[in-house]
């Protein structure tokens, strides 16, 4: 079963695509949650339940959006590829490994695309939850959430660096710089 799934992953090249989607949408999720938290920090919002609800709402929406958008686009793309292959092979490919892969790949990619921002969102929200559960934190809860978001973005940068085969620290610092620029932009544009 697992062997067959790995085989389908390989012939449909879904592994590479899922990895790309994970990084791209994970980055979106982390930056969105960072932006939300910077917004709350700048506005002086201190209600933890409000911040958690807003962040949770954003993470869920990003997750659902990730699943649906990736499924719709990937299913269409895979169907097109299968039709092209059917044209080249002059036969129906529905019952072949290619047919199975074209049905399986969109689901896998959609789940990865949806789970990436959702799970990353949960990691960023974690310090806020811990504070709500009265767990002692070294910094204010929102500052801890901001720090976690920056750390997650740095880690995503490292993953991008490893995929590209470039120096991990440089790649991590680059995504960290993007995160800091985003935070600065939100700070500057905030009317309060």
């Amino acid at each position, binding site marked *: 079963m697992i062997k067959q799934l790995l*085989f389908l992953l*390989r*012939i449909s090249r879904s592994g590479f695509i899922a990895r790309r989607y994970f990084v791209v949408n994970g980055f979106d999720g982390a930056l969105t949650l960072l932006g939300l938290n910077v917004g709350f920090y700048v506005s002086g919002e201190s209600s933890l339940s409000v911040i958690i609800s807003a962040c949770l709402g954003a993470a869920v929406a990003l997750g659902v959006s990730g699943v649906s958008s990736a499924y719709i686009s990937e299913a269409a793309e895979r169907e097109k590829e299968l039709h*092209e*292959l059917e044209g*080249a*092979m*002059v*036969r129906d*490919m529905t*019952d*072949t*490994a*290619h047919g199975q892969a074209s049905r399986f790949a969109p689901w896998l990619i959609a789940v990865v695309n949806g789970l990436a921002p959702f799970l990353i969102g949960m990691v960023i929200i974690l310090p806020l939850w811990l504070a709500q559960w009265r767990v002692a934190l070294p910094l204010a809860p929102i500052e801890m959430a901001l720090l976690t978001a920056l750390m997650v973005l740095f880690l995503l940068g490292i993953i991008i660096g490893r995929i590209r085969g470039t120096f991990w620290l440089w790649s991590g610092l680059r995504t960290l710089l993007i995160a800091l620029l985003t935070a600065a932009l939100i700070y500057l544009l905030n009317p309060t």
Partner: protein
Amino acid sequence: MAKIRRIVLDVLKPRQPNILDLAKALDYQVQVRVDEVDDKTESVMLEIAGDSIDFPAVQTVINDLGGSLHSVDEVEAVGVEELAQSEPQQV
């Protein structure tokens, strides 16, 4: 009924899975030669050898991997009587 010992097949298959996957999926002694490569497909000459080749099972494997059997180019079969004669007699 005769047993098929060797067959040579002309198969058109998608580029993926590759010929290594095709060879591994067939549980026989296999020799694959790529004759022609296209954008999405390739034509391969598949030589299968074994004590008793299950031809429908071979067809199923080719079909499952997205291939099309174009022709059966060579067959080597051994009849049961001939098989019995070739086996060493016990004294």
